[in-house]
């Protein structure tokens, strides 16, 4: 399989402040790749370097076989980009902005725009400064998809989208993949990346912690489930399971931290009378505590 993005030793310092350090990464053509990390980890810095908005201190980025510095215009023709901090031309209407960007791309995207706008349910005839953040995000998605790019680079794409629109967005990603196009998306939300990507990388403090198949990551990710039992339960009950890493007991509430499938934990808990269950899935920091510890022994 050809490579959509190759990063080799990509490093960016802002003065003496580290942005990203020595990133090596290969994204295959035709896959949906998740770039996962907490806020401030260097996700947007990496994307900015790939698209030549900022210049790496050292290292290279190759996009669809083209050099990110030398062939920047050719790369931008093939890429659809959704900025993370989406700012827009507020005095234009949505339609005017899409027409403007389509002109700059020298493409006729009218039919594609109409279809995307209908699917995402967006009103294009209002000034952008009157849009809600959700609508601005939809507009950002439309402009990223409208020219059917070979590579989609989406920085935190689902922020501000309601669940129904999110589902529509996921199906857009599936269609892009079915057509052999590549999606590179960043996120700080683990379940989202688990749900929609094939492979993912985890970045923290500018350094790549791991690159793996999403199923593999799911196996290793730590989750937490909180049970409240009718009667107090001894922590040793759960510690007998090999996947369980930690058990905290406060009165009748037991917090179980484990890796891999929730199934054995649940079956064990079911032997007792369970009053409530709360799942703490979404917290990336705790989910990848193991990786973070490996990194520098500091679990921020």
């Amino acid at each position, binding site marked *: 399989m050809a490579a959509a993005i190759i990063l080799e030793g990509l490093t960016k310092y802002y003065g003496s402040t580290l942005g990203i350090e020595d990133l090596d990464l290969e994204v295959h053509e035709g896959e949906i790749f998740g770039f996962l990390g907490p806020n401030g980890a260097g996700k*947007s810095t990496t994307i900015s370097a790939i*698209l030549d*908005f900022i*210049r790496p201190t050292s290292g290279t980025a190759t996009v669809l076989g083209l050099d990110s510095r030398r062939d920047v*215009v*050719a790369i*931008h023709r093939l890429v659809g980009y959704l900025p993370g*901090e989406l700012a827009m031309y507020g005095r234009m209407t949505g339609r005017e902005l899409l027409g*403007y960007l389509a002109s700059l*791309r020298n493409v006729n995207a009218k039919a594609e725009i109409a279809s995307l706008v209908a699917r995402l349910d967006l009103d294009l005839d209002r000034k952008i400064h009157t849009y809600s953040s959700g609508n601005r995000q939809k507009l950002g998605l439309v402009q990223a998809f409208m020219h059917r790019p070979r590579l989609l680079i989406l920085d935190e794409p689902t922020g501000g989208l309601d669940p129904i629109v999110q589902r529509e967005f996921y199906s857009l990603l599936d269609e892009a993949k079915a057509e052999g196009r590549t999606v590179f998306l960043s996120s700080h939300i683990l379940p989202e990346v688990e749900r929609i990507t094939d492979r993912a990388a985890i970045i923290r403090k500018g350094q790549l912690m791991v690159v793996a198949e999403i199923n593999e990551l799911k196996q290793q990710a730590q989750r937490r489930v909180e049970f409240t039992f009718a009667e107090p339960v001894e922590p040793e009950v759960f510690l007998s399971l090999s996947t369980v890493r930690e058990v905290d007991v406060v009165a009748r509430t037991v917090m179980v931290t484990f890796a891999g499938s929730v199934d054995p934990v649940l079956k064990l808990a079911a032997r007792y009378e369970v009053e409530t269950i709360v799942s703490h899935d979404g917290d990336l920091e705790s989910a990848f505590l193991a990786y973070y510890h490996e990194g520098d022994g500091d679990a921020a």
Partner: protein
Amino acid sequence: MLHSVYGETIWSRRNSLALYVIGLGLLVGITVGVYPSVRQDSEAFAQLLESMPRGMLSFLGASDVSELLSPSGFINSRVNGSVGAVVLAILAISMGTAAIAGEEDRRTMDLLLSTPISRRRVVLERFAAMVTLVGVTAAAVALVMIVANPMVDLELSVANIVASNFELALLALVFGSFALAVGGLTGTRGLTIGIAAGVTVATFFINGLAQLVDWLEGPQKLTPFYWLQRSDPLGTGLSIEDTLIMVVVIAAFLAIAVWGFERRDISV
């Protein structure tokens, strides 16, 4: 209009352009309109002006009273050598600032540059839009002068009116391209406006004060306002030398803007 960076730049200025044209048109119209009464009472005006400090004359773009009371001198004092030049420079500076630093300040530069438009092209199209709007505004000023000229017997030659406003546009573009260069180098809107406006005001005052303060005579020669004042294109026609100087300076600032913008990180 929203088919290119050039078109978008003009589109975004469509309302303010009308204000600039109307404002400067009124300034010229009123200036020319009151000139007949100045001419009629020229002795009284001359006495009044003689009693003023010499430095004031210089700020009005003239070196002596008789020059100030001639048609070209009077119009220079009100428009091309003073207020008009500053207003047109403000238009150019505001466009030069918005071109790069303003776009970055608004955080839309990454969206714009994610299209297949090179940084160089963004700068060049924005510069072309600035030339267009400054040119249109200066042409409107020239048109008002040409129409009013026979109505109040100014006896200015049409060629000189055109030459004067052509040089006026170049003067504004010197400051506008300076702002473009600072924006290209820094990408910071506040800094760009501050430096460009500061330099414009400083050069305006250096030129004005040089008549009073000997040691400013050297620096004065570096101010664009001086270039326009010494050749008096409205009275004597186009100065090839000053035109060339301004064109070269504008081209140099444009080159710096492209170089500065191409080499650095943008704010995203």
